[in-house]
């Protein structure tokens, strides 16, 4: 069962399932290492509904909550508290 990245609790590792964004935005995300199949973790949320700080591989990224809504992720079992870079980024073919 997947949920939007915006609702993923802090410090829980999840796997990116789909990116429901335009092609250009998807390319930029891919440039930063954010693509289907990779492990992702929310580090912190900015107050006043500001951006999220997420970690993908060795890169920390900030993105707006309105964009995070369109990224669906699936929490990985028993990974709470483990950094995203610890969970091996397993590759699944893009849907």
């Amino acid at each position, binding site marked *: 069962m997947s949920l939007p990245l915006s609702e993923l609790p802090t410090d829980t590792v999840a796997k990116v399932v789909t990116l429901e964004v335009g092609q250009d935005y998807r390319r930029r995300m*891919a440039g930063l290492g954010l693509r289907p199949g990779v492990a992702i973790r929310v580090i912190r949320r*900015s107050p006043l509904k*500001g951006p999220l700080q997420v970690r993908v591989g*060795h890169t*920390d990224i900030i993105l707006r909550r309105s964009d995070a809504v369109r990224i669906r992720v699936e929490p990985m079992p028993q990974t709470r508290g483990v950094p995203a*870079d610890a969970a091996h980024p397993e590759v699944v073919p893009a849907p």
Partner: protein
Amino acid sequence: MKRIALLGMPNTGKSTFFNRLTGAGARVGNWPGLTVELLSARILLAGQMVEVVDLPGIYNLHGFSEDEQVVRRFLESQPLNLLVLVLNASQLDRQLALALQARHLGVPLLLLLNMEDEAQRLGIRIDSAALERALGVPVRLLSAKYGQHYREALAAIERSLKAHPALRRADRRALEEDQHIEQALDRLVQASVHAPVQLPPTLSERIDALLLHPWLGLPFLLLILFVLFQAVYALGSPLQDGMEVLLGEFRRSVLDPALAGLPSGLRSFLAEGLYDGVGTVLTFMPVIALFFVALAIIEDSGYLARIAFLVDAIMQRLGLDGRAFVMQLMGFGCNVPAVMGTRIMRSRGLRALTMLVIPFSLCSARLQVLLFITTAVFAPTTAPLVLLTFYVLSVLLAMFTAFIWRGRYVNREPLLMELPPYRLPTLRFLLHEGWRATLQFLRGAGGYIVLGVVVVWFLTHYPFDAPPASPATLAGRLANGLAPIFSPLGLDSLLAIALLFGLVAKEVVIGALAVIYSAGPDQLPGVLAQRLDAIQAMSFLLFILIYTPCVSTIAVIRKESGDWRLTLLAVAWPLTLAWLVSFAFYQTARALGY
């Protein structure tokens, strides 16, 4: 001549490498068919002159952001001997994607894995021989910042140049089609990069726990910016004053005696027009240099991205972002470097909107005028309240302006950026940035500023037999003609002339008032208190706060945007607002019987 281009993602130290390679000789220049200026330099490599071009940082060769299109257009139109791809060695897990795209271009390629010191600290091991084999291009490790392995990188560049003497154009097809490289990327990373399962907790994370704290983050941000602001202007103002003293001394002891024999009109043109114009340009130099050092500290340390994180919630609603916030805040010292600082923004719409907003920041020149007149006219108890009103108004008008024009100048850049680890900028880099910004200011905006000062000089001094700034001059006649516009604000034509002077630089208003009322600096407060009641004074000050920025600010807006329409708007919009606000205030106050 041979040509090399540097390509890489943002935050890879590509520009640091460029600086090290080219020294201080780099200049920004236009390229055929490109909408932005690129930094380039000519250097001697392998016994030949080589042109080195620093391309904008991009994430993807096939993307549609402005920078990505610029890079594609450059590669399409400009043949190269060598494309040097600079990647961040600690982030090869994603950055090698750019190498996979670039090797299809058909241009000789060299891969530099920069920041190897950082990768080493994180325990990341890179098998560059495996990378060379897999990609079929030379690969070198390097730390551009501290110069480790710089010689080897340089030697590799020279070797590649010798091996590829002919200029080659990139394959257009490779630029157009978007390959699916995800699986190739994963295979490549697995074969050549060995990262520990879990990266060690970094110093950056501990600093972020404090600086990005939910409640403490914003107070820390304001504190840090306040300290930098104080440093820039506390160091810059004495330097600026010193420059003015020097200029005045030069004029008294050298220029005036030298010009003594000339006809009065020509003498006035040379001394009060041209020389003062050049002087205006020169007095900006210290503040611009220091400002860009401060900006380089914020940007290069990695804090700028954190500022975006902290203030985005507020700024996004205004169509702006964290970088605009920094510039607007720094604009309270001086608008000119703040406008130049918008060049760190990549989206044109965002830059334009920020340039419209910055002039509402109550700069120190306007503060001088406001302070002088409020202390002259208002009681000591009300004067601080009046000043506070101006600061609040300054922020409100900036927000209002952003709100009105955000639909016209749209920020198309989504907030999706890397939060790089904190890095200590090197002194060498900071000095380099300050120096380069100052040179660019002199070359770019200097001419416009001198021109602006000369125009205002002409208006206020012609005809030459009339006393300067008197009603008989062009400015006086203009002010008389504009009387129907200014009288509803409670301002007479003498004050209108002073406003015209204020275009040169806002602090000139005081000097102009002294000339206009033929009062010495010590008598001026008394004269002002006599001539203006509180309501008139307030109306005058409101106008000064809001109306058209000084010629220097207009000149840098023109230079930085390259857009006359925006420049015109930056003149007309504040003028309109100033009139409306002063009008509303004056008429309301009078109607209420004050």
